[in-house]
């Protein structure tokens, strides 16, 4: 059985201007010990997908249809009380901007212990002991659990956030842009740490980012999202070397590669569409250089290229001359 299986998830937001289809028919699978990179531009629905899993959506948001199966149990149908037991015990999250996610007037160790006491039957003293062990696990000095957040650097705070995410031995950890606000060297340290922990603890990891280039060495699988939909998914080699969707290709070629010739990468013209009135047909067609008539009217279905490699494009692989 898969650790996580999302089937046809739709999460919409009701706002005064209309219904924002932030996540529109998304399906994913993830196994134990596997890592999945969820990548796309700002506003494509990556974070909403993650928040749907944990049911942490804001008031305006609701899951319209679809299933989220965690070890076969459907999280969408669960009551608030049931989901509270899942949250942090089975599925935890590392949030973007660790600097703001910690309480500035509370010792870091106490914050981690509080999390443990809330979600597991444990005394505060035991929980503090566990916090020390967790600090050691993420390469922080255990005695620093009595520090306040301002005594930590950005990288150390992010390590503390990871320790907190691991506090209840979750099966699935979701990292929402865990390295975006950090320096390059600290980013490399944090990615190494996540890679090591995933293997040691055999947990599933979903890494949400707009930076496709960091996924090449940290993930097994990648799903590319555009305007609320997954447009291509597959293992890392499929996405990097045999991609079929022009958007994946464009996203990849917007990064410079220091091992190649020095050329300015191409920008992706235009901006992502409005999700209240998404364009008809393929949602990428207004920005796609290969767009033909059918792209404007008919929505492309998911096509299987090889085992585990899917894409949604009428012209699969057109950018490779195929």
């Amino acid at each position, binding site marked *: 059985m898969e650790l996580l299986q999302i089937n046809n998830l739709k999460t919409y937001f009701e706002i005064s201007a209309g219904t924002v289809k932030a996540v529109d028919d998304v399906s994913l699978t993830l196994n134990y010990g596997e890592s999945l990179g969820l990548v796309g531009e700002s506003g494509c629905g990556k974070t909403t997908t993650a928040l749907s899993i944990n049911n942490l959506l804001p008031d305006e948001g609701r899951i319209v249809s679809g299933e989220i199966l965690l070890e076969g149990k459907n999280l969408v149908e669960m009551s608030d009380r049931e989901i509270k037991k899942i949250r942090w015990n089975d599925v935890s999250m590392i949030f973007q901007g660790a600097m703001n996610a910690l309480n500035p007037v509370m010792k870091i160790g106490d914050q981690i212990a509080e999390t443990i006491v809330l979600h597991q039957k444990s005394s505060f003293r035991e929980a503090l002991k566990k916090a020390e062990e967790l600090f050691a696990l993420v390469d922080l000095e255990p005695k620093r659990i009595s520090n306040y957040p301002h005594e930590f650097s950005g990288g150390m705070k992010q390590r503390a956030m990871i320790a907190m995410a691991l506090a209840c031995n979750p099966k699935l950890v979701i990292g929402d842009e865990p390295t975006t606000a950090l320096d390059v*060297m600290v980013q490399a340290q944090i990615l190494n740490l996540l890679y090591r922990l995933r293997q040691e603890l055999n947990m599933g990891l979903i890494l949400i980012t*707009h930076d496709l280039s960091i996924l090449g060495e940290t993930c097994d699988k990648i799903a590319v999202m555009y305007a609320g939909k997954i447009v291509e998914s597959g293992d890392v080699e499929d996405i*990097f*070397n045999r991609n079929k969707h022009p958007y994946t290709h464009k*996203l990849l*070629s*917007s990064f410079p590669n*220091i091992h190649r010739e020095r050329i300015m990468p191409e920008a992706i013209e235009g901006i992502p569409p409005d999700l209240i009135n998404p364009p008809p047909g393929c949602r990428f067609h207004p920005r796609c250089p290969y767009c033909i008539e059918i792209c404007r009217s008919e929505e492309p279905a998911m096509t299987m290229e090889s085992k585990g490699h899917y894409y949604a494009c009428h012209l699969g692989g057109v950018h490779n001359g195929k």
Partner: protein
Amino acid sequence: MENKNKIISVKDLKVQFQIKQSFLHELFAKKQKIVKAVDGISLDIHQGEIVSLVGESGSGKTTLGKAILNLTPITSGEVLFKGKKVEHTNKRELKRFRQKAQMIFQDPYQSLDPKSMIIDTVAEPLEVNNLLKTAAERKEKTVKALEGSGLAPAENYLYRYPYELSGGQRQRVAIAGSIILDPDFIVADEPVSMLDVSVRTGILKLLLELKNARNLAFLFITHDLSLSWLISDRIAIMYLGKIVEIGPADEIIKNCRHPYTRALLSIMPIPEVHRNRNRQVLKGEIPDPTEIPRGCRFNTRCEFAHDRCYNEEPQFTAISDNHDVACHLAAKEQ
């Protein structure tokens, strides 16, 4: 390089900040703590040249940029603008310098006034400097600056507010404001790090266009070595207040000598599948700038450090034309 005009010339620049200490500390005359943010830097920037300043957070990149623009007091050393000293000039000259040397900030979500229309934001430098005669002139110049920054037709943007624009468009507005006075030199402090990957290249291309069309000189501050490689003529690697390696962009990427540059290069994400890549992830973080290590300042994180590195500060050695490195070991490799 020699025959080109030097726009900015920095000579042995030092910027230090005193840390405020408690009354008790002062009472017992404990040692004053001084942050050495910029600790002896010399650098020339020529007309039509982009020099990148690359380093981790806390290496002093932004402080150096601000010190060059006279936005933060200099402790010692000097900054020459077109051969003239900037620091102690009179108010009128300082004002003229401010017109000719501009800055673009990192976060276009914070650097624009949310309550001003785009035309007011972009034209403000003209008003502050009393350079306007008529309202028509104000609009004309603003339109020119906006279109020069890739926001065409400018009429679509003039009377809008920042919240109506995307991150990339906001950064273009900020750039329009910085070029409206027709400057000679711009410090761009991480101008694309807050932007989505898909719009980054657009902004970088714009900076290159400005450089070529107006013969502008840039100091491009970034922590991303691959971005600096894309747009700059020369790259300077900064560590704990000092430049440790400087050279032509391609030379730094293909033939760098300093262990710190090599480590930075090895961890740059690249858009390829690369398992088991030989990455040199440095342990820990940049040391406390109030207690700079003796000898080579990189010795606490350098795997090759030996006796000499702990005692003697390395000086610049020329590796090739315009390529200098400050490392005892790299010099020996020669």
